[in-house]
């Protein structure tokens, strides 16, 4: 494969000086230079609670309105037109190969997080059947993770994006704990992993269950905010 997995153009295969300088093993990339810069990384100026890109580092309006227990989320990229186009092709058209675009950035981001157990947000059975993959675990390579959460079917029948904010916030708890979850989670620091942080409702539902399972701390990481 010497074509960019996203845009399909041929990869030049040129080794840059900085790659040689680092003297590490050459990372085989599937993504061209243009596509690597298509997404907008979130800078250090973001909301300390939800990770949203903004012009300062104060708690954002949405997080201030949130009454319940706070959940600290980190996010990699701004949920802009390019990220929406990526998600459209990856999640909704089901182009599983596009997982490779974000595997490497996610690997680097996970290395910066401190946690004991990684728990990806699951997809329900119907989605799994139809999509053929879980978009979140697709981004993981060799990182160990625990499928500690189960999700009731019909949860994502109506896509989150089709609901307004109020409807999303009203959503009932969709998650339950897997059978062995309590053994795995007890006194652990858990990192939840999801694709997009929109209202944070899904992640808070998940965090609630993880705490019930005995975890001592829960934080989350999303690819987009």
């Amino acid at each position, binding site marked *: 494969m010497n074509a960019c997995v996203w845009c399909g153009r041929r990869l030049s295969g040129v080794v840059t000086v900085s790659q040689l300088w680092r003297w590490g093993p050459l990372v085989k990339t599937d993504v061209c230079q243009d596509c690597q810069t298509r997404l907008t990384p979130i800078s250090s100026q973001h909301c300390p609670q939800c990770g949203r890109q903004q012009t300062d580092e104060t708690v954002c309006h949405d997080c201030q309105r949130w009454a319940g227990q706070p959940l600290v989320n980190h996010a990699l990229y701004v949920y802009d037109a390019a990220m929406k186009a990526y998600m459209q092709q990856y999640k909704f058209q089901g182009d599983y*190969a596009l997982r490779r675009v974000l595997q490497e950035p996610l690997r680097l981001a996970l290395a910066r997080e401190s946690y004991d157990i990684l728990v990806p947000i699951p997809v329900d059975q119907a989605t799994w059947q139809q999509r053929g993959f879980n978009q979140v675990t697709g981004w993981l390579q060799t990182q160990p993770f625990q499928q500690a959460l189960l999700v009731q079917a019909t949860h994502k029948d109506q896509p989150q994006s089709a609901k307004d904010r109020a409807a999303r916030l009203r959503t009932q708890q969709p998650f339950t704990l897997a059978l062995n979850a309590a053994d795995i989670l007890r006194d652990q620091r858990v990192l939840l992993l999801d694709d997009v942080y929109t209202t944070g409702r899904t992640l808070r539902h998940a965090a609630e269950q993880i705490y019930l399972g005995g975890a001592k701390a829960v934080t989350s990481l999303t690819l987009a905010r």
Partner: protein
Amino acid sequence: MTNDEAFFGRQLPFQTAPAPDLTATPALKAMGSRLQCQRCGHWLGPQDQLANQAWYCRQCLQLGRLTSQHKLYTIPEPNQLPKLPDGGLTWQGELSAQQQVAAQSVLAHVQSQTNHLLWAVTGAGKTEIVYPALVWALSQGWRVAWTSPRVDVCLELAPRLQAAFANVAQTVLYGDQPQPYQYCPLTICTTHQLLRFQAAFDLIVVDEVDAFPLATSPMLKRAVDHAQKPTGCHLLLTATPGEGLQRRVARKELAVTYVPLRYHGHLLPQIDLQIAWRWREKLRHGHLPVRLIRQLRAYCQAGQRFLLFVPHVADLPLVDRALHLAGITGGVTVHAADEARQEKVQAMRDRRVAFLVTTTILERGVTFPNVAVVILGGDDPVFSTAALVQIAGRVGRSAQFPTGDVTCYCHSYARRVRLARGMIARLNLQGRRQGGRP
């Protein structure tokens, strides 16, 4: 529409059979050790697999993902179509003598079911030239597709054909179009949409066959062949055939009808070449070639409206600023992703602006009466030979103003510019033989 009709000559994917008695083939077929998509012909790579172990085709993803769990269902085309005595034609117009000669030739090739190229210069009225052949085909109860790689061509064509053939049921198919599919004698669609058909059409008219992306896409070429019945034929329409098509014509593999004259009987304007040494470096420093400035100033003073083509969107602000500095004002810039594109083009039509500075988006379709055309950087690779001939064809479209200037500024005499001038010269040679006026 009965349920069966939805499957006539189509290939529709389902994971479970939608009805009994349908012919089905696996969507991805094992050929030796590899899988081939039966819709688009793509050979799957070793990594094109989902987490649930199913394989999927990445190439035709936009039409809905095909996996190894799908089958394609079809009913062989039965031609359950009316045989309209007059082909359903309601068009009242008349063909010129020259158009009639070409129309007869096209008709003869369609009647003998042979593939054919109609090479008609821009402004020849190629759509109308096809009408007699279309009338005949529809009167035989043939199923016909009129397709173009470009959705804007389809959208412009559909109402024209609807008006000209008011008694013929038509269905229009393109990417995100709202109407549901209907089984009709005449299907107007983007070439992508032909991937949903299998041995359906007796005649496929391929409009703007040289346009992107058909010219460079084996998938779309296959789509035309695949949607055509084994007994069927296709008619290719273009003003500017690519080198591949020209070679097939030269080798007599493909029959051709030339229409070297525009409908008003005048020759194509030749491209006047002006060498502008290192124009790009100069533009970077905010300067335009002196001769170009002089020419555009003269146009402005004479009230001559013009189109100035530049290679890239990024060149537009630079050129705009340089024109301003030179005191050439009253125009606007426009490009493909410009949100005000339609309004700006309309403003030019309404004579509210004196000129447009644009990229290659206006090379086809858009016509303004009495404009001059200037190309800055015609040697840039974005200007293919076809694009240059199409751009030159923006001049002299109306019978009232059948002539005009086309000037091309280049750093060097690039091959594509030479080929474009050669193509115009050859067409004009033939045009002169048919009595064309300069």
